[in-house]
């Protein structure tokens, strides 16, 4: 019984792990990068690099935002003011306009320097970190709903693989620090074990809470039984702030903003505000929505206050005093998204995410290596093996390259071209496609090595490209104490270094292969072929 249990767990781990591992790698990779979502948005927008830390009180900023919007967009149906934070230095003022029957409303995003309260010049059209954030669960070029179901399936597979993995790799805790890079396939197993066990709490947490983020799509049944209107009714109850407010035909020239904010500041004087939304600013249905900042609390949705703009009275609030169930659900999403993290914890999250990528990558490489090892030197691999090898190299080497492509496109595309943000995304996918096509033809160690060196070259030139195309560089960032931008350059250089070492390692493997030591490794086999 015990033996067969162990064997079935191994089978489960192998096949469940392998089936969706490339999708999982993409999800993990994009998710890990999205921990730095706002930082990437900042990097991608050189015009906001020079903004100093904001010195005004939040009430002043809100008032100047409202004042700006009153001038710039009196006829908008929604104003949106995002206050600056440590991660986003600019004051965001956006407005939404109706486009007539049947058409989607149009958003116009503007940004103000919080110190001069003037519009920032030279903004470019870019998706920034939001691209990776969306890629993480919406994938791309795909129906959103289908993509989310796929991502959920992948996470479920990941959860199964994790639990069966703990069962079959019994010695992971005993051999905690074991990593022997010179030992062939054994080294990959070590890397797989080490990367999974060192961040095991993170892996379990992120996979489980990942499923929880989409739980109402996966299990709509409780909401459908409890509410007359089903999920819609549940959403109205759970997210009162998302309820659509209908416009009124009566005009209103002087909304009671002052009264509303006076009430808010008197009753919640310590509350930090994240954003302010004004719906229908020009008519009698005007309402002011205030979203509080959660800071480092383990909560996801923001506390919320809604004031009537016509009278200045408090209409409704939400999540000011959340229930236990709300705390649990919100808490799980909060630890998943890591929005609460300061830079220290953010980097720890990032390290754990990278460990997850290594875990998945080493797992799929190991599968291919083991099969390859069993083959005789004259045998060529089956179609399945070739497919796995192609997908391995295409995802593991292709995604970092594509990410670099995205960053280059951001710096090198001329600012005036139309749909520039989409072209950046296109650069990402084109780079990835080229890598994938190349990996169909070349899958041996030499190909891995060439991709590693290409990656190293591309990443090491990225800070250079940044220095040439923007006004700052690593030295000025350090001098001016712009640590977020400096860490980008450091991260690019570190990535380049890692790929350079990988290339060197593969080079020594490809040239100094000792066929007497080990029966046959993939590199030796393919060199002769």
């Amino acid at each position, binding site marked *: 019984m015990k033996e067969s249990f162990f064997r079935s767990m191994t089978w489960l781990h192998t096949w469940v792990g392998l089936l969706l591992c490339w999708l999982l790698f993409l999800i993990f990779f994009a998710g890990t990068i999205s921990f730095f979502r706002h930082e990437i948005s900042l990097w991608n927008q050189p015009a906001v690099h020079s903004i100093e830390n904001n010195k005004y009180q939040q009430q002043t900023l809100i008032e100047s935002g409202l004042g700006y919007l009153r001038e710039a967009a009196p006829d908008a149906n929604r104003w949106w003011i995002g206050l600056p934070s440590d991660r986003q230095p600019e004051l965001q003022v956006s407005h939404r306009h109706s486009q007539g029957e049947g058409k989607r409303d149009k958003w116009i995003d503007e940004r103000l320097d919080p110190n001069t309260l003037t519009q920032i010049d030279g903004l470019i059209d870019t998706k920034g970190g939001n691209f990776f954030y969306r890629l993480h669960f919406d994938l791309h070029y795909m129906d959103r709903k289908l993509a989310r179901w796929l991502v959920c399936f992948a996470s479920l597979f990941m959860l199964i693989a994790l639990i069966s993995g703990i069962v079959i790799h019994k010695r992971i805790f005993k051999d*905690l*620090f*074991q*990593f*022997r*890079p010179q030992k062939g396939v054994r080294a990959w197993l070590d890397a797989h074990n*080490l990367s999974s*066990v*060192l*961040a095991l*709490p*993170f892996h379990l*947490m992120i996979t489980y809470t990942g499923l929880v983020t989409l739980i109402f799509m996966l299990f709509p049944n409780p909401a459908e039984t409890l509410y007359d209107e089903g999920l819609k009714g549940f959403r109205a109850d759970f997210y009162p702030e998302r309820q659509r407010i209908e416009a009124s035909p009566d005009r209103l020239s002087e909304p009671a903003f002052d009264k509303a904010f006076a009430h808010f500041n008197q009753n919640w004087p310590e509350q930090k505000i994240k954003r302010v939304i004004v719906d229908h600013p020009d008519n009698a249905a005007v309402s002011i929505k205030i979203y509080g900042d959660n800071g*480092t*609390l*383990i909560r996801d949705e923001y506390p919320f206050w809604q004031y009537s703009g016509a009278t200045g009275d408090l209409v409704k609030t939400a999540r000011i005093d959340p229930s236990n169930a709300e705390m649990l659900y919100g*808490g799980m999403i909060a*630890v998943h998204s890591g929005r*609460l*993290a300061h830079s*220290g*914890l953010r980097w*720890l*999250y990032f*390290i*754990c995410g990278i*460990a997850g990528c290594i875990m998945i990558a080493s797992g799929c490489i190991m599968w291919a290596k083991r099969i390859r090892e069993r083959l005789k030197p004259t045998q060529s691999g089956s179609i399945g093996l070739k497919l796995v090898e192609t997908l391995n190299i295409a995802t593991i080497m292709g995604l970092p390259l594509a990410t670099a492509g995205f960053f280059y496109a951001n710096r090198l595309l001329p600012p005036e071209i139309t749909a520039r943000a989409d072209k950046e995304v296109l650069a990402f996918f084109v780079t990835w496609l080229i890598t994938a096509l190349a990996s169909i033809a070349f899958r041996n160690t030499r190909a891995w090595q060439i991709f590693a060196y290409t990656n190293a070259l591309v990443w090491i030139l990225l800070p250079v490209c940044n220095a040439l195309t923007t006004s700052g560089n690593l030295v000025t960032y350090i001098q001016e104490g712009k640590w977020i931008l400096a860490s980008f350059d450091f991260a690019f250089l570190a990535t380049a270094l890692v790929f350079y070492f990988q290339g060197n390692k593969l080079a020594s493997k490809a040239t100094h292969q000792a066929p007497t030591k080990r029966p046959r490794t993939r590199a030796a086999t393919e060199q002769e072929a």
Partner: protein
Amino acid sequence: MIYSLATLLCLSAFYAFAMAKTSHYKSVFGTRPSQKKSLYINNLGWIIILLSFVVNLSQAIGYGSLMFCGQMALSVTLIALCLTYQPTLLRSALYLLPMWAIVLAALSLIL
């Protein structure tokens, strides 16, 4: 400051866990530890990691435990990489880690 102290404690704890294993001890110090010594180091590791956990939780229960998980990942990565590529580096850690811990503890008490 407190969180850096907790990180350092966590690193020391995993250093102790690694040194409690004969093969790793040998690669760092060149000699085999006695069984009693291994057990002693291992227990010391448990005490320090508990201390690190408490220090983290003293700041904030939720945020602290997230930090603790992250610190464990960082510590294991650093120790494992050192053991693989530069095991002798860890020899000086025997003195450096407690010294840093004392300095940081003193600083966090003063500030």
